[in-house]
C-alpha cells in the first residue's frame, strides 16, 4: 500500500521577486487523507496547481503517479474554490458534473450513456441527485460544493485535490462534507487544503502546514499527540505569522 502517488522535490515557485513556495518537499502515499493547513496567501492553492501541472515550478521536480503532472491529468480530480465561480452561469447541476467526463478522448464526441450514468451516480453519492436539473445559481454554497466534488469524482480519479472545500459553508454542512470525504477516502487518495483548522484534524490522517515553506508531520502512525502538535502549529502560524519560529520549535523536538 505504500506506493507514492505524489512527490514534490525541492519545489520553488517564484513570481519575479515574490516567492510563493520555498523548497517544498512532500510525498503523498496511496490511500492518504492529507490535510494541508496554513494562512491565506500561504501558497496552498499554488501548491495544488503545481500538482495539477497548471503552474510550472521555477525549480524542483513534481512527480504524479510516476509521471509528469501534465501526463497524468486525467487521473486527478480537482475541486477548486467555489468563490471563483460566477453563480449566475447558465448551466444545470448535471451540465457541471458532466464536465468531469471531458477530456481529449471526448473531443468530437457526445456524452454517452456511461458518462450520464457515472455523473448521476456521483450526484447520488453526494446526495444531490434530486437537484440534477437545477440551475447552479439556485444552489447554496454547500450544495454547489457537493456538485463540484461530484464533478471531480465523475472523472474517476485516483487522487482527489480539494481547495478550501469548507470555506463558505456552515458548521453542520461542513461535518457532513467531511464524513462524505472520509467515506471516499476508502477508494481515493485525498489532499485537501484549508485555512480552517477546526474540523479538519478529526477527519484527515496526516497534516502538513504550509506558509511558503511546508512543515510536514506525516508520520504513518497518527497519535493524538502528533495531531495536537500539528494542530497547534498553524495556530501559532496564523497568530504570529512567523513561520521560522515554528520550524525552529520542531527542529528542537
Amino acid at each position, binding site marked *: 500500500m505504500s506506493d507514492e502517488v505524489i512527490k514534490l522535490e525541492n519545489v520553488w515557485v517564484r513570481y519575479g521577486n515574490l516567492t510563493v513556495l520555498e523548497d517544498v518537499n512532500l510525498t503523498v502515499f496511496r490511500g492518504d487523507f492529507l490535510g494541508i493547513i496554513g494562512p491565506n496567501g500561504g501558497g496552498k492553492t499554488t501548491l495544488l496547481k503545481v500538482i495539477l501541472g497548471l503552474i510550472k515550478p521555477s525549480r524542483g521536480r513534481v512527480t504524479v503517479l510516476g509521471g509528469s503532472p501534465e501526463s497524468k*491529468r486525467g487521473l486527478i480530480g480537482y475541486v477548486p474554490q467555489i468563490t471563483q465561480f460566477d453563480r449566475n452561469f*447558465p*448551466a444545470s447541476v448535471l451540465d*457541471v458534473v458532466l464536465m468531469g467526463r471531458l*477530456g481529449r478522448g471526448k*473531443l468530437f464526441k457526445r456524452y454517452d450513456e456511461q458518462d450520464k450514468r457515472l455523473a448521476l451516480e456521483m450526484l447520488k453519492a453526494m446526495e444531490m441527485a434530486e437537484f440534477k436539473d437545477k440551475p447552479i445559481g439556485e444552489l447554496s454554497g454547500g450544495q454547489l460544493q457537493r456538485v463540484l466534488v461530484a464533478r471531480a469524482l465523475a472523472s474517476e480519479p485516483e487522487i482527489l485535490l480539494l481547495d478550501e472545500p469548507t470555506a463558505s459553508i456552515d458548521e453542520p454542512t461542513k461535518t457532513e462534507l467531511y464524513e462524505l470525504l472520509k467515506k471516499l477516502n476508502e477508494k481515493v487518495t485525498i489532499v485537501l487544503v484549508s485555512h480552517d483548522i477546526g474540523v479538519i484534524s478529526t477527519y484527515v490522517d496526516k497534516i502538513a502546514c504550509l506558509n511558503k515553506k511546508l512543515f510536514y508531520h506525516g508520520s504513518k502512525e497518527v497519535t493524538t499527540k502528533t495531531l495536537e502538535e500539528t494542530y497547534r502549529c498553524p495556530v501559532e502560524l496564523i497568530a504570529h505569522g512567523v513561520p521560522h519560529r515554528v520550524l525552529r520549535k520542531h527542529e528542537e523536538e
Partner: protein
Amino acid sequence: MLDFLQYEFMRNALMAGLLASLACGIIGALVVVKRISLVSGGISHAAFGGVGLGYLLDFDPLLGALFFALASSLGMGLMRGRTKVSEDSAIGILWVTGMSLGVLFIGLRAGYTPDLFSYLFGSILTVSRLDLAIMFVLDMVILLVVFTFYKELLALSFDEEFATVRGVPTRYVYLTLLSMVALTVVVLIRIVGVVLVIAMLTIPATIAWQFSHKLHRIMFGSTVLSVVFTTSGLWLSYVFNSASGATIVLVSVAAFILSSTLKSLR
C-alpha cells in the same frame, strides 16, 4: 407597412439581418458568458485595417476584414498568458492599430474617397448578393464549429482550469472561440459597422441571459431577439429615414433597458 419589401435592396437587407442574427445570437451568448466582450471589441476594430487594405489593393473589403479579424484573434489567443503585457492593454493596442491602419490605407488610395462611414457604422441597405453569400458561408462554419465543440466551449466558459486539468486542449478551444468571434464580426460589419459590432454581440445575449439558465437557450433567445432588433430597426430607419446601423443598436439598447427594468421589478 410591408411596402418597403418591394425593393430588392430591402429584401437583401432583411436577409442580411437574419443571417447576422444567427451568428451574433450564437457567438454573442458565448462572448457574454465567457466575458470576452472587450476582446471582441478589439477584434472588430482590428478588422477595420483589413477593410482599408481591401480598398487600397482593390479587393472586397469584407475579405480584408475577415483576414485581419482572424489574424488578430489568433494573435490574441496565442499571446494570452505568455507575455508580461496584460490582456486588456494588448486589446487596447490591437484596437487602435487596426483602426489606424484602416484610416492610413484608405488615405493612401489616391483620388476616390470611398464610403468610410458604411464600414464604420454599417449600411445594411447596400448589402450585395456577394455579401449575402459570404455571410451565409460564415454562418454555416460558425454553426458547425459550435455544434461540434459545444460541451468544450461550455466547460471553457464555466471553469477553464478544470477543463485543462481534464485534458481538454483549452488553449485551442479558446483560439477556436476567438476565431468564431472574428467570423461573426465580419458577418456583422455590413449590418452595424466595426464600431457598433460589440452592441450586437452583447445586448441580445445579455437580455436572453436574464431569462434563461441554459446556454443553448440563451443562444436561441438572443438569435430571436437579434432578428427582432434588426428587422424592427431596419423598418424604423426606413420610416424615419435614419441611419440603419445606429437605429438597430438603439432599438436593442431600448429593449435592454426595458427588460432590465422588468427583471428588477419582479
